């Protein structure tokens, strides 16, 4: 018995219960109504991992370096194995024969990406090899996205299949549904999650080597949690989060075992610690590690480009709530009012910010950050930049500002710096200008003088 949204649901049932009509996904109440004598057990992922371990070993005999999502669900990168065994059909036949022996009723799906492979395995056929991924996905019901609220909205709009969703313009979907819509559109079009690793230091692994082997399962569990926490803290400092993590363990007798775990969403600390613990327990209980554990190493093998790392107190639900709140804000104010920004090259503060609507991609930057930009005003930058330069009356004494008019009063200039002179784009008839920093008793401003007139272009608030 597992659960979703706090409701207890049937995760699995034995043959007798299934004969009585019990199915996975059914509520506990419905299952008990159909089979009153059924014994209800709580789901134990660690025990499931232990039972799944021999199946993983058998799969790894055919295809090395499988990626486990959860007990009972595994992805295997098959490119090399297909060549080795002489074709997809030969590989699938071998795999099916192996699974039939260990896990009768298992389903296999072969496709280019994990999303299509997942739905190929769930197609109801024992094995399905997808040749044309786009065509296969386009025929799937929109519920394949498995995000209830989004699916309900798509249905309400008349979009009932992934093909219909993929046919919509991407920018329109992004504008209306934000990042979740964009992700759904990518999946529907056969583009799985884009993992674009950021530039990070090469060695982002954590490892513990013990002088005395750990024999007690509780000690192993404690070490798994501690090391998972260390890895997430390390990755958090680099603003990345892992989609895949390799767990490597060494037994006292020198045997080294490793397994890759994968997640559709970046792991958080708790999820990673659970998986490491399940894996270690499975190895310990199935004889994969004997004589105690002497070394444990965790290595992220795929990192997100989002820089998103949920904190200790954050859950995935918070992220969904955040996106929902921003989507509703955009609905109220319009798409041009909810914005993201990133740095770009330039001299003026306004030039150095590239804006994009929230949920949409940034345009290609036109001003390189790497260029020197001579004449740029040094930090600190003004925290307020008027959308249009505001006229300011300034009294000058031989290019030295002496007084400025603020509202109805004249304020003496207490300090000033500059000018940072610009020739301007004379070929575009732009006139020369100069930037000044002017400090009065009311605060500091960044001002531009051009053609004898002065404008406020920034306020140091």
């Amino acid at each position, binding site marked *: 018995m597992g659960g979703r949204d706090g409701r207890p649901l049937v995760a699995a049932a034995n043959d007798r219960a299934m004969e009585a009509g019990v199915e996975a996904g059914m509520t506990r109440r419905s299952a008990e109504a159909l089979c009153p004598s059924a014994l209800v057990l709580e789901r134990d992922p660690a025990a499931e991992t232990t039972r799944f371990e021999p199946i993983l070993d058998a799969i790894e005999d055919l295809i090395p370096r499988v990626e486990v999502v959860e007990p009972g669900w595994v992805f295997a990168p098959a490119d090399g194995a297909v060549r080795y065994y002489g074709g997809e059909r030969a590989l699938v036949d071998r795999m099916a024969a192996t699974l039939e022996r260990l896990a009768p009723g298992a389903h296999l799906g072969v496709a280019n990406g994990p999303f299509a492979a997942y739905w190929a395995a769930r197609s109801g056929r024992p094995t399905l090899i997808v040749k044309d991924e786009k065509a296969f996905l386009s025929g799937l019901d929109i519920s394949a996205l498995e995000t209830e609220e989004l699916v309900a909205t798509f249905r309400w709009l008349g979009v009932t299949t992934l093909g219909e969703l993929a046919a919509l313009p991407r920018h329109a979907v992004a504008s209306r549904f934000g990042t979740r819509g964009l992700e759904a559109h990518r999946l529907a079009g056969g583009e799985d999650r884009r993992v674009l690793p950021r530039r990070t230091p090469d060695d982002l692994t954590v490892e513990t080597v013990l002088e005395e082997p750990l024999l007690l399962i509780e000690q192993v569990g404690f070490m798994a949690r501690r090391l998972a926490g260390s890895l997430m803290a390390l990755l958090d400092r680099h*603003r990345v989060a892992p989609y895949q993590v390799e767990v490597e363990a060494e037994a006292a007798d020198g045997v080294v075992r490793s397994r890759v775990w994968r997640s559709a969403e970046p792991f958080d600390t708790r999820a990673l610690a659970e998986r490491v613990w399940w894996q270690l327990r499975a190895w310990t209980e199935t004889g994969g590690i004997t004589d105690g554990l002497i070394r444990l190493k965790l290595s992220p093998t795929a990192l997100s480009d*989002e*820089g*998103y*790392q*949920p*904190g200790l*107190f*954050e859950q995935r639900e*918070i*992220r969904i*709530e*955040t*996106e*929902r*709140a*921003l989507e*509703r*804000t955009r609905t*109220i*104010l319009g798409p*041009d*009012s*909810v*914005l*993201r*920004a*990133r*740095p770009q090259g330039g001299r003026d*503060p*306004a030039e*150095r*910010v590239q804006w994009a609507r*929230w949920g949409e991609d940034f345009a290609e930057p036109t001003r390189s950050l790497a260029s020197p930009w001579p004449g740029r*005003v*040094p*930090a*600190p*930058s*003004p*925290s*307020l*930049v*008027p*959308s249009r330069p505001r006229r300011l009356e300034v009294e000058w004494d031989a290019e*030295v500002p002496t007084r400025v008019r603020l509202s109805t009063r004249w304020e003496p200039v*207490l*300090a*000033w*710096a*500059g000018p940072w002179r610009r020739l301007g784009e004379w070929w575009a008839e732009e006139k020369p200008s100069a930037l000044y*920093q002017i*400090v009065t008793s*009311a*605060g*500091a401003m960044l001002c531009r003088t051009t053609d004898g007139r002065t404008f406020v272009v*920034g*306020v*140091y*608030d």
Partner: protein
Amino acid sequence: MSASILTAAPDGSPAPADATGLPVYPGRVIGLEGSTGSGLTRIGLSMLSAIPASCRVAVDVRGWLCPLAAWEVGIDPDHLTVVRCGDASQWPRVLAVLLDGVKAIYAEVPRGVGEALLRRLGAKARARNATVILRPLAGRVPSGMAFLRLRSVRVEWEGGREGHGSLGRRTLMVELSGKGAAGRYQVVEVEDDGARPVRVVSRLVTSQVGRSVG
């Protein structure tokens, strides 16, 4: 800032360690009061950067907010969303919607937003455990609503001298009041070097004797 002038959180947990030295707690409203140019935007953004959240939102009423300052005080560009809301009649609704899903908000308050509405939004922030930093463009945050109230008293710039150099370090005198300042008026010196979050560098003698819980 020494810990002595800051109260612990209502649940007794210690003040969170952050670079600014100003107390920032979940579910609390912070009020920034002072005229434009008094350095409060940068203080507000520094406090926003100290809130542990994956998404921070800045509500920009005038359309003037420059993210360069936010990045300079340590907010990751990927973690900042700017909401431009120039319509004062929509502002309460927008803030209420944001409070449903965002845990770290810096919001300029336009003229004309009533005290009762602000109090209701403060209650919602507490209920949603969101930290809201309010910067009224006119007037004050209603009495008793803000856990911590900051009022800029004086600003001094270094670096600009008769055309030489450029503006660099800024020192602000800020008056703290409210429960977050142990219910007393405190005057602190805050340093802004332009490259890091602003931070409290010293606590000055309390200029006013008395209690303030507002």
